[in-house]
């Protein structure tokens, strides 16, 4: 449970994980743009990029779960007092949505892979095969591909807005970006 008195700063672990997960999301998203556009003439490269994407997705999922554990144990520093009531509510809502998407998008991705008729395994770190959780199904695969796609776009858009707002607050003299960067 979070401590009664909220900490003044983010812990070093919380800060590192925040940026690692952010980097994972950016990299996985960038990879998705490249890998889905590769033609079948480059099947080996395509395979490797997909596996890298899957690995990043699983790392994002693990990192997010770890962040939630740290949030529960360590708590979080309060939002600056200069935030309006509305800004505070919007911040909590936005962060909540981001946490949900950071879990939902990788899970949808994993299920997309599991239901794929091609039966290509997830090779974590390109070497560790992970099991398919479902039988193959073209119907569910098509549906999950769409869900994974739009959830990922939502995640990237909301994360982008989150970053933009952080920069704006920083420029306005509310150093929330800095405290996530250097404590």
């Amino acid at each position, binding site marked *: 449970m979070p401590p009664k008195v909220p900490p003044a700063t983010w812990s070093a672990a919380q800060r590192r994980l925040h940026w690692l997960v952010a980097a994972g999301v950016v990299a996985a998203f960038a990879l998705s743009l490249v890998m889905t556009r590769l033609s*079948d003439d480059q*099947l*080996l490269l395509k*395979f490797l990029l997909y596996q890298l994407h899957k690995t990043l997705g699983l790392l994002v999922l693990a990192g997010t779960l770890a962040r939630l554990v740290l949030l529960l144990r360590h708590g979080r520093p309060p939002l600056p007092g200069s935030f309006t009531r509305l800004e505070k509510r919007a911040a909590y809502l936005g962060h909540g949505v981001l946490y949900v998407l950071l879990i939902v998008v990788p899970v949808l991705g994993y299920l997309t892979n599991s239901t794929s*008729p*091609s*039966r*290509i*395994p997830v*090779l974590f770190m390109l070497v560790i*095969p992970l099991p398919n959780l479902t039988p*193959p199904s073209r119907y569910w695969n098509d549906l999950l591909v769409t869900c994974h796609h739009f959830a990922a776009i939502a995640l990237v858009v909301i994360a982008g807005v989150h970053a933009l707002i952080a920069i704006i607050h920083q420029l306005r003299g509310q150093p929330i970006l800095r405290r996530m960067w250097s404590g």
Partner: protein
Amino acid sequence: MPSMGRDPALGKARRAVSGPVREDVPSRPHRCARAKHWWLLAFVLVFPASLVAAPARSAILYQVDPSYVSIRFVVGNMFGVFSTTGDFKQLSGSILLDLDAPQHSHVDVTVASASIETAWDTANKMLLSPAFLDPAQYPSVHFVSDRVVQLAPDHVILHGYLTLRGITRPQELDARLIDEQSQPGMGPVADFVVTGQFNRHDFGMTTDFPTVSWKVSLKINAHIFLTPKGSNAP
């Protein structure tokens, strides 16, 4: 004639097992022969008798219904981290099994190369491309047995020729009769399971390694109905 079954008349009438089985050899002498067709009756009685003079062999032949046959291949992908399985959906030809003298069995099967199907769209596209099966130029894949060597009562090696992309090469296939069991209403059934492998490079499919392994494994499964000896039931 019944499409399958142990028919002593057929067994005696047919000495040679070569050629497709689906030719219209009557399964038993015509019983409708009337007196005015005495010559036909005589022919039917005499013709098999003329063959009995040949060295005796109780050839009991099974024609295998193509709808009970699956022809499947498996290739490894990406250095074997996963594999792709496909089926040829259209096949024709004959599988003649002589269970009493397996060395006289004969297999002659042609599959339509365009009928290949896997669950993976990318693989389907690849298989139908000129680098692989190239159905536009080579519409069929063919195997014909040449020599059958018996290893055990239910296990033979089929030596023959595989023609793929217009290239014919010797090919060995391992054939077993397994899972003999009684099926209600059908009598005894069994699976004739044929396995083998070839190197796709030998047949001119020289691209896409290691995405697709060189080794291609084949698994042909024919479900056959074994009618008890002496019975004329299909």
